[in-house]
C-alpha cells in the first residue's frame, strides 16, 4: 500500500532517528508544506484570514502547550495568561521603538520569566493541584492586566498594534501576516519534533513518567520542570505576540481570558497529548468545528429546514464544543493523533490485522 516499509533499511544510527523515516510520510509532509505556502493563491481572503491563519497560530500555541503538558506532563490551565504576557510585551516594546524582531524575542523572554514563576508551583505539586494553581495564576495575571492601566492601555483596555516590518518586509496586508504566522508555526513544529528526539525531550518525558526515577539517573527534576515551563512559555509568548500582530491587531484582556486557556487545553487533548500532528488536528478541530457548525445551522435555520429557537441555536456551538470534548475523551482519549496513527498503522501492517501477536 502507501506505506511501503520493505526496502527501507536503516544502516546508520542517524537514519534510524530521522524525522520521517518512511518515504510516504516524507512526501505527505512536503505536499502539505507546499499547499500551505501556496494558500494565499488558492483560497479567498475570508478563508485565509479567518480560518487558515488563526489555525496556524493556534497550532503554534497548542504545540507550545503540548510541549509542557504532553512531554513534560505538567498540567497548565493558565497558558493564555502566558500568551498575554507575550502579546502585551511585544506591543509595548514596539511602541517604545524596539524593532519588531527584537520585540518578538523580548515577548518570548518575558513570557518565559512569567511562565517560570507559574512553574514554581509545579515544584511543589502535580496533577489536580497543579491545575488549580495555574488556574489561580491565570486569575492573578488577568487581574493585574486589567487593573494596571500602564499595561492594559488605559480605560478602554485596548492596545492597537503598531505597523511593523519583519526583516525589512512590512507586515500589513493579509498575505504577509499569513506568511509570518505560517513561518512561526513551522518553526515551532520543527522545534517540537526535534525536542522529542533529543536528550532534552527525553529528560522531559522522563520527569513526566517517573520523576524519582529520572532523578536517580541524574536528571534534576526541578531544573527540567522549570526548563519545560520556560521553553513552552517562551514559545507561547512569541505566539501571543504573533497572534496580536498578525491576527487581532490589537490586544485586549478578553483575548487571553480563562476560557482561552481551557480552549488550549482542549486543543491539546483533542489533538493528542505530546503529538505534533495532534497539535494541528486539535487546534483545527476545536477552532473550526464550532464555527462551521454555527454557520451550518444558521443556513439550515434560514432555509426553514429546521425549526429551532434563536436561543437554542446560539447555544448549539457551546453544546457541541462540550460534547466534542466529552466524546473524544470517551472514545479516543489519545486524541485525533491516535486516530491518525491507527489509520497509518493500519496501512503499515496491511494486510495483517494485529501488529503483534
Amino acid at each position: 500500500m502507501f506505506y511501503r516499509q520493505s526496502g527501507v533499511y536503516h544502516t546508520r544510527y542517524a537514519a534510524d532517528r530521522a524525522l520521517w523515516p518512511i518515504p510516504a510520510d516524507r512526501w505527505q509532509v512536503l505536499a502539505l508544506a507546499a499547499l500551505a505556502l501556496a494558500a494565499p493563491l488558492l483560497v479567498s481572503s475570508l478563508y485565509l484570514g479567518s480560518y487558515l491563519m488563526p489555525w496556524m497560530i493556534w497550532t503554534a500555541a497548542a504545540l507550545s502547550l503540548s510541549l509542557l503538558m504532553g512531554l513534560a506532563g505538567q498540567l497548565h490551565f493558565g497558558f493564555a495568561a502566558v500568551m498575554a504576557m507575550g502579546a502585551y510585551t511585544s506591543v509595548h516594546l514596539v511602541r517604545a521603538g524596539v524593532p519588531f524582531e527584537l520585540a518578538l524575542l523580548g515577548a518570548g523572554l518575558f513570557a518565559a520569566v512569567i511562565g517560570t514563576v507559574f512553574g514554581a508551583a509545579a515544584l511543589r505539586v502535580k496533577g489536580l493541584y497543579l491545575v488549580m494553581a495555574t488556574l489561580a495564576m491565570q486569575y492573578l495575571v488577568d487581574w493585574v492586566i486589567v487593573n494596571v492601566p500602564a499595561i492594559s492601555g488605559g480605560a478602554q483596555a485596548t492596545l492597537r498594534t503598531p505597523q511593523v516590518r519583519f526583516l525589512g518586509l512590512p507586515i500589513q496586508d493579509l498575505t504577509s501576516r499569513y506568511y509570518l504566522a505560517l513561518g512561526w508555526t513551522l518553526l515551532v513544529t520543527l522545534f517540537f519534533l526535534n525536542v522529542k528526539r533529543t536528550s532534552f525531550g527525553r529528560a522531559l518525558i522522563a520527569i513526566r513518567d517517573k520523576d524519582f526515577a529520572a532523578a536517580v539517573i541524574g536528571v534534576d527534576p526541578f531544573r527540567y520542570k522549570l526548563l519545560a515551563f520556560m521553553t513552552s512559555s517562551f514559545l507561547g509568548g512569541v505566539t501571543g505576540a504573533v497572534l496580536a500582530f498578525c491576527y487581532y491587531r490589537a490586544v485586549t484582556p478578553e483575548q487571553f481570558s480563562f476560557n482561552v486557556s481551557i480552549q488550549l487545553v482542549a486543543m491539546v487533548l483533542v489533538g493528542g497529548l505530546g503529538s505534533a500532528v495532534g497539535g494541528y488536528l486539535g487546534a483545527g478541530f476545536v477552532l473550526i468545528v464550532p464555527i462551521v457548525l454555527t454557520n451550518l445551522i444558521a443556513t439550515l435555520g434560514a432555509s426553514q429546514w429546521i425549526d429551532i429557537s434563536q436561543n437554542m441555536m446560539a447555544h448549539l456551538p457551546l453544546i457541541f464544543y462540550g460534547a466534542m470534548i466529552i466524546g473524544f475523551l470517551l472514545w479516543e482519549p489519545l486524541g485525533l493523533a491516535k486516530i491518525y496513527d491507527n489509520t497509518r498503522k493500519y496501512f503499515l501492517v496491511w494486510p495483517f490485522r494485529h501488529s503483534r501477536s
Partner: protein
Amino acid sequence: MPGLVLSNVEVIYDKVFLAIKGVSLEVGEGEMVALLGSNGAGKSTTLKAISGLLGPERGQVTRGDIRFGDTDLLALGAPARVAAGLVHVLEGRRVFGHLTPDENLVAAYRAGSGRRSFDELREEVYDYFPRLRERGRSKAGYLSGGEQQMLAIGRALMTEPRLIMLDEPSLGLSPLLVQEIFGIINKINESHKLTVLLVEQNAAATLEIVDRAYLIENGQIVMSGEAATLKENPDVQEFYLGGGEHTDYRAVKHYSRRKRWLA
C-alpha cells in the same frame, strides 16, 4: 464436579495485542490448582479475564467461554462475579491505602440474607492473620509488604468466596512470610473447602501445596498435570524449580537455552 471452566479463551489488549490465545483450564470444587509460567506469559491476564477486570486496561475477551458452576461469567460485570462467589486477590496487593485495615474489611463486606455477620467474618480473618488485628487502626498504606498481602487476602475472604484467585501472593515477601502465607492458603483451602487458583513464580513452594498445576507460556497452556508428576519433569525442574540452594549461580551457562516441554 466442575467448578471453574475456561475453554479456549483469547484476550486482546488495546485492540491489537493478543495476550492469551486459546487458554483452557479447569478448577474443580475444593481443589487447589496453580498456574505457573514465566514473566509475561499471561497468568495475570488469565485471572483478570476470569474476574472481569480487563476493562480498565483496555483488554477484552474476544473468544472462548468462562463458566463458574452454571454461571456464564462473561455475561457478568466484575462485582456480579464476586457476588457469584469468586474473588481475585490482585497482583501487587492493592489495599485501600487511605483506609485502615478494619475499614478495608468493611469495604469488602456485603450484608445480605444468608450471609454471615460482619463481626463473625472479621474475627475469622483476624484469627488467620493475628498481626492485622494489632495494626487494625493505622492506615493500610503504611503497612509492610507482608501485612498488606495478608490484608489483601483477608479482605478477599470477607466476600465469602467459593473460589479465591491469588496472583503472586509471595511477591516481594520474606521467606518467613512466604511460608506463613502458603500455610494459611493451605489452611483456608482445607478448612473451608475453598477452591483456590494460585498464580506463582515460586514454583517449588507452590507445587508442595497444590493438587494440580498448569504451565502457561506465551499465552498458551503448554503443560498440565498432577503436582507430583510435574515435579518430576526435567524441564520443570530446570526452568522452575532450580536446584534450590544448590544452584551454582556463578556457573550458570551463558548461552540462551531452549525449552522443549516434552511431557
